[in-house]
């Protein structure tokens, strides 16, 4: 087995976006463009799949967002010739927290993520465009995302690619060096860093996830292969504890045929 082949992955993902968007009757995609790596890659893929004229990048800064986020997002949009829409979320978020002035930064971060979701889904209706999510496999597996916030989308084109693979896609697609080099951050508060918050680098995290998830090795096997036991257990626990975020809400089973139990159809039913 060779190395990850970004050209082949791009070929599949572009077709995935094009087919899954158009066959349900849409031509356009809308995504949050943060200035970071993941949304830059999704913007590239969506522009290739649907055309730049059908791709809308929405810039949604909060007053504490890094000013470079806006300029980097604009850089990607200019590179691709996609349309951009600027929606400041500061007044909406601040209006909400007048009611809860003591809310901590996690609550504030979640509300920002969900405010952006609200904007994207409103524009989705206004533009007749599907929301293209930017979550990757690493953050989905460890639950590093806000449910019904940045995780809310019609599809996750990067949902089967680890962060380190997304970096390879970015290089292959020609995402500007400046965006590829900056440290990953959710940019929900000043100085936030994915790797500091997770307590692990993406290289190590992805390597562990590949062993646990893709290769189905046990924690014990990883320890035998030289990984630190506490670290592996912590990652495995993150995956387990965040599983609820990857599932639809629980529904009781009390009738003869129940949603989430034995009423089974694919989303692409009839298309």
């Amino acid at each position: 087995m060779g190395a990850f082949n970004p050209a082949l992955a791009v070929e599949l993902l572009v077709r995935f976006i094009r087919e899954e968007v158009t066959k349900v009757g849409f031509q356009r995609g809308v995504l949050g463009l943060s200035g970071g790596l993941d949304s830059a890659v999704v913007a590239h893929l969506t522009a290739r799949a649907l055309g730049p004229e059908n791709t809308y990048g929405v810039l949604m800064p909060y007053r504490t967002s890094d000013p470079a986020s806006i300029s980097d997002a604009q850089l990607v949009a200019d590179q691709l010739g996609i349309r951009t829409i600027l929606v400041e979320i500061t007044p909406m978020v601040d209006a909400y927290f007048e009611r809860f002035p003591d809310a901590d930064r996690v609550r504030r971060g979640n509300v920002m993520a969900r405010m952006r979701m609200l904007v994207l889904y409103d524009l989705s209706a206004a533009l007749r465009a599907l929301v293209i999510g930017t979550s990757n496999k690493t953050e989905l597996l460890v639950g590093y995302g806000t449910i019904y916030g940045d995780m809310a989308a019609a599809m996750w084109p990067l949902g089967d690619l680890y962060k380190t693979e997304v970096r390879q896609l970015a290089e292959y697609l020609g995402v500007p060096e400046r965006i590829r080099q900056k440290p990953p951050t959710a940019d929900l508060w000043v100085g936030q860093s994915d790797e500091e918050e997770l307590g692990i680098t993406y290289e190590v995290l992805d390597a562990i996830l590949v062993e646990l998830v893709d290769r189905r090795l046990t924690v014990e096997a990883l320890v035998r292969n030289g990984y630190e036991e506490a670290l592996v257990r912590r990652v495995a626990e993150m995956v387990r504890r965040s599983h609820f975020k990857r599932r639809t809400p629980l529904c009781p089973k009390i009738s003869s045929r129940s949603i989430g139990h034995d009423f089974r159809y694919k989303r692409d039913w009839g298309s």
Partner: protein
Amino acid sequence: MRFTIALAQIRPVLGDVLRNLAQHLEVIARAAKQGADLVVFPELSLTGYYLEDLVPDVALELARSEVVAALREASATHHVDLAFGGVEVSEDFRFFNSAIYVSQGEIIHVHRKLYLPTYGMFDEGRYLAPGDILRAFDTRLGRMGMLICEDMWHPSSVYLLAQDGAQILLCLSAGPGRGVRGETKLGSVEAWETITRAAAQAYMLYVVYVNRVGFEDGAVFSGGSVIVDPFGRPVVSAPMLDEAVLVGEVDLQEIRRARTFYPLLRDERLDLVLRELRRIYAQRYHLSPYDGGF
């Protein structure tokens, strides 16, 4: 005997039999214009693959189905044989993943998928019943055998059809694409190349592999349909991932040539195989010679 086979590498719509029928009829007309004597469609070409609870809704009673009648009529009108896939419901209301061979307006043969993958990304065994008969059959174009996708991953299926005299093996497939670590091709496509060529070469017969394309809920079907000659050489290959209708020529004399060079089928030891299989079977199920029936 030489004739032309069309590979109908299509993208069925999930659960919409009438739209898929219209697509079949359009492809048949086009292939007939290209001189096809036989058009081979993918697995579940009339229904799409991830049917789940749609299975009973799309199931056909082959003898009464108007959809099948339309295809029978098309085979007569265009003077072209057809192999296509659908869900078949039996008299006792079991549902099968079936491949149907039609010639000059009549159903000549039905193959019910033997091995229903129910693991990983597959869940066929939950909704469908497995077939339990495997036979080669005679057509106006030669003796054929049909397999459906997973069937071909069991070498015994190919072995049995070859022993039963199949000259042309049709494999109708809905093979998902996976693995982005190859030089140019998906891992799953390379795997199918290996087994189709190996089957053709080991049994000196033609392999006609037709895989669908398109996405269903994020899973991609990777195409790569191909006709492989009895020396293991591709006669015509469809692209990965794109819809295509391609024709290739088959010459049954090539089978004679291949079997002259490599008389492996002549040298096959059915008696040996049966003897050893009986022993293995008896041991596996703890049968004594007095249990009878083996």
